[in-house]
C-alpha cells in the first residue's frame, strides 16, 4: 500500500496543474445561480471544449473512443485537482460523459459510436437521462413507458421524472418497455431519443430547496428510429447497467471535497458566532471532519481496487451509506451553529448561511440520488456479507 504518487502520476498531476493555472483565469465567470439554462449550457460545454482541446475530455474513457484512457488514480487526481483549483464542474455534461457515453462506447455499433461520442467529448452535445418514472423509483425495472414498433420507428408513450438538464439536452438515453409480457427486467430496451423529436413535453420540477434541477418529461407518441436502439431489443436493462461495472469509486469525489470545504467554513462561521466556544460544536465538527477524512481514504481504497480489479465493487454502496450519514449530521450541526441566521437562504448576517442551509436541505435528497439507503443496505448485507435475500 502507498499513498504517494508514482512518478508517472506526479507528472500527470503537474502537467494538469500547469494547464489549470494557465487556463482557469481565461474561463468566463460562472452564470448566476438561477434558471438561465442556456447560459449554464454555454458555460459547462465551453469548459468541456477546453478539456477536449487539452486532451482531458473523457478522462476515463478508453482511447479507442477518443477518451484519455486514464487510470483510476489519474482520474482521481484529475477530479481532486480540478476541484481544488476551482475549475467548473461537469455540470450538464454529466450524463454524456459519465453514463450515456460510456454505455455507447461499450455497447453500440461503430456507426452509433461515430455519430454520438465525438459530440460528447467536444461539448457539442448535451445528454439527459430518461430512466426513472413516477411509478418506478427505487424499483427502476418496473418502468412502464412503452415503445411499440411501427415500421422503422418505435412509438414511445409514457412519463419520465427526475430528468436533469432536459431543457438543454440534445439527446436522451431512454429506457422503454418493449415487451410488457416478459419478466420486468427482460422487456426493456435502451435507445437514444433526440430531444427535438415532436411529442416531448418538458415540465420543470421544483425541489424542496426551491431550485429546479429536475424535470418531468411527458412522452406522447414520440417516434424514435429503430437505428437509435443500442443493443438488442429487450436487452436494455443489461445495457443500462453495464456502466456500473465501470464504477471506479470516483463518483462522489467532488461532493466529498466540497464537504471538506464546508467543514472548514463552518468552523469559521462558528468562530464568528461564538458557537466555537461550545465543546459540543467543536467535538461534533471534529468527528465529522474525521469521518470525511476516512471516507477520503475509502475513496482511495475504492479507486485502488478499481485499478487492480477493474471495479470498486460494493465499495460504492459502502461510501454512499457512510457519506450520507455524515452529511446529515453536518447539516444538522450547520443549523445549530447558524441559529436564527439559518432561517434564511439569503445571508444578511454575512455568515455564508446560504451554502450551509442549502446543503442542509440537499441532504434530504441524498437517498434519491444514490438509490435509497435501504436498498444500499440490502446490497451491502447481501453482496458483502452474504445474507439471504428477503424473498
Amino acid at each position: 500500500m502507498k499513498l504517494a504518487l508514482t512518478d508517472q502520476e506526479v507528472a500527470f498531476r503537474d502537467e494538469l496543474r500547469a494547464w489549470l493555472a494557465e487556463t482557469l483565469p481565461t474561463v468566463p465567470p460562472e452564470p448566476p445561480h438561477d434558471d438561465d439554462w442556456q447560459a449554464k449550457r454555454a458555460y459547462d460545454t465551453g469548459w468541456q471544449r477546453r478539456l477536449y482541446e487539452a486532451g482531458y475530455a473523457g478522462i476515463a474513457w478508453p482511447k479507442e473512443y477518443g477518451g484519455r484512457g486514464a487510470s483510476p488514480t489519474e482520474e482521481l487526481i484529475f477530479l481532486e485537482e480540478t476541484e481544488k483549483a476551482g475549475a467548473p464542474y461537469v455540470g450538464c455534461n454529466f450524463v454524456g460523459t459519465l453514463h450515456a457515453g460510456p454505455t455507447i462506447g461499450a455497447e453500440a455499433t461503430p456507426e452509433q459510436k461515430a455519430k454520438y461520442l465525438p459530440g460528447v467529448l467536444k461539448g457539442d452535445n448535451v445528454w439527459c437521462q430518461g430512466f426513472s418514472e413516477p411509478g418506478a423509483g427505487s424499483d427502476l425495472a418496473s418502468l412502464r413507458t412503452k415503445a411499440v414498433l411501427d415500421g422503422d420507428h418505435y412509438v414511445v408513450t409514457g412519463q419520465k421524472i427526475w430528468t436533469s438538464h432536459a431543457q438543454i439536452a440534445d439527446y436522451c438515453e431512454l429506457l422503454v418497455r418493449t415487451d410488457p409480457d416478459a419478466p420486468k427486467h427482460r422487456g426493456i430496451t435502451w435507445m437514444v431519443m433526440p430531444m427535438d423529436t415532436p411529442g416531448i413535453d418538458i415540465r420543470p420540477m421544483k425541489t424542496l430547496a426551491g431550485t429546479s434541477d429536475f424535470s418531468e418529461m411527458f412522452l406522447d407518441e414520440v417516434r424514435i428510429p429503430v437505428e437509435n436502439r443500442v443493443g438488442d431489443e429487450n436487452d436494455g436493462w443489461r445495457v443500462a447497467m453495464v456502466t456500473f461495472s465501470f464504477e471506479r469509486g470516483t463518483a462522489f469525489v467532488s461532493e466529498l471535497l466540497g464537504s471538506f470545504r464546508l467543514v472548514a467554513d463552518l468552523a469559521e462561521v462558528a468562530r464568528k458566532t461564538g458557537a466555537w466556544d461550545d465543546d459540543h460544536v467543536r467535538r461534533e465538527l471534529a468527528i465529522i471532519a474525521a469521518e470525511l477524512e476516512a471516507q477520503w481514504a475509502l475513496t482511495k481504497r475504492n479507486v485502488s481496487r478499481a485499478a487492480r480489479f477493474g471495479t470498486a465493487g460494493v465499495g460504492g454502496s459502502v461510501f454512499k451509506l457512510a457519506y450520507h450519514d455524515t452529511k446529515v449530521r453536518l447539516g444538522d450541526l450547520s443549523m445549530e451553529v447558524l441559529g436564527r441566521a439559518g432561517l434564511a437562504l439569503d445571508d444578511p448576517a454575512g455568515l455564508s448561511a446560504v451554502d450551509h442551509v442549502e446543503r442542509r436541505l440537499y441532504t434530504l435528497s441524498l437517498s434519491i440520488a444514490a438509490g435509497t439507503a435501504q436498498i444500499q443496505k440490502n446490497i451491502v448485507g447481501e453482496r458483502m456479507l452474504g445474507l439471504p435475500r428477503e424473498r
Partner: protein
Amino acid sequence: MDLEPTDDQNTLRDELRRFVSARVDHDARWAAAAQPGAVDRDLWRELGSMGVFGLLVAEDAGGVGLGWAEAAIVFEELGRAAVPGPTIATALAATIDGLGLDGIVDGTAVVGLVEAADPLFVEHLDGLDALLVLDGGSVTLADPPTGTTPVEHPLDPLTPLTMLGAIPTGRAVEGDDLAHQLRAGSALLGAAFQVGLGAAALELGTDYAKDREQFGRVIGSFQAVKHILADAAVGLEVARAAVHAAAVARDERAEGHRIATARIVASRAAHTATEACIQVHGGMGYTWELDAHLFLKRVLVLDQGPAPVHAAVGAVAASL
C-alpha cells in the same frame, strides 16, 4: 392524576382539527406562501372566533377562560395544518394584562413576538399590528417598523422574515416576571405546534407507505420503512405526553422543568417525524409540491423561536 384528555378536551381537539383541516389545507398553505408579506386576516378572525387567541383569557375579560392544557391541544392542531402566521405570539399577547391593544382575542389584531438577538429576524413583520420585543428581562410593545424589506428567500415559505438593523423602540410592558412568562408560554406552545407538525408529517408518510408499491409490495410492509415510521410514532407519543404534562403542570403551578423537557423532546420528535416523511416518500419527498418540507422547515423555525431549544437544554443542565 389523569393525563388522558377529558371528553371536553377531545371535543375541542376534534373541532379544531375539523376547522383547521378544512380551512388550511394544501392549497391554502400554498396560497399563503405565494403572498409572503401578508397575514390572512379572514383566517385570523376565524381563528379568533374559534377561541384560539382568547383561550387563555378569562371569560370576564372576553376570553374563553380555559387553561394551558387546552392551549397545548389547540396548538398541536394548528401545527398539524402548519397554520401560517404568528398564532403563538398573538395568543400570548392576549394573556398580558393591560397591554392596551384591542382586538387580539377576536382576531382583528395580529401581534408578533421577537427575541432581541443577532441577526434580528422578525417573522411576518409586514402583517403585524404590533410587535412584542423580549430583551433580557424587559418586554416592550413596538409599532412594527415600516419601510423595511423582507429577506428574499426565507427558509420556510410560510414564515416571511425581515431583518431589522436595530431593536425597535416601544412602550415598556409591565407584568410579574413577564419576559419569563412569555418565554415559557412560547416554549410550551412551540413544542405543541411542533408535535402537530410531526404528527401531520407522520400521517402523510404513513398514508404514502400504505399506498405506494415497489418490488411488488406495499412499501409500508418493508421493515426498513415500517421501522422508520415506528420510530417517528414513538417519538411523537412521548413528546405529546410531555407537552401535555408540562401544560397541565403550568395550569397547576407546578411546572418545574417540564416545559424545558417538553421543548427538547418535541423538537427532536418533530425532526424525526418530518424527516421520516421525506425519506419514506423517496424522490417525491424532495419535491416542492409535497407539504413534507413545509412541516420540516417550520420545525426548524420554531427551534429558533423565542426560548429556543438550546436554551431549554441549558435550563435542564443547570438543574442537574
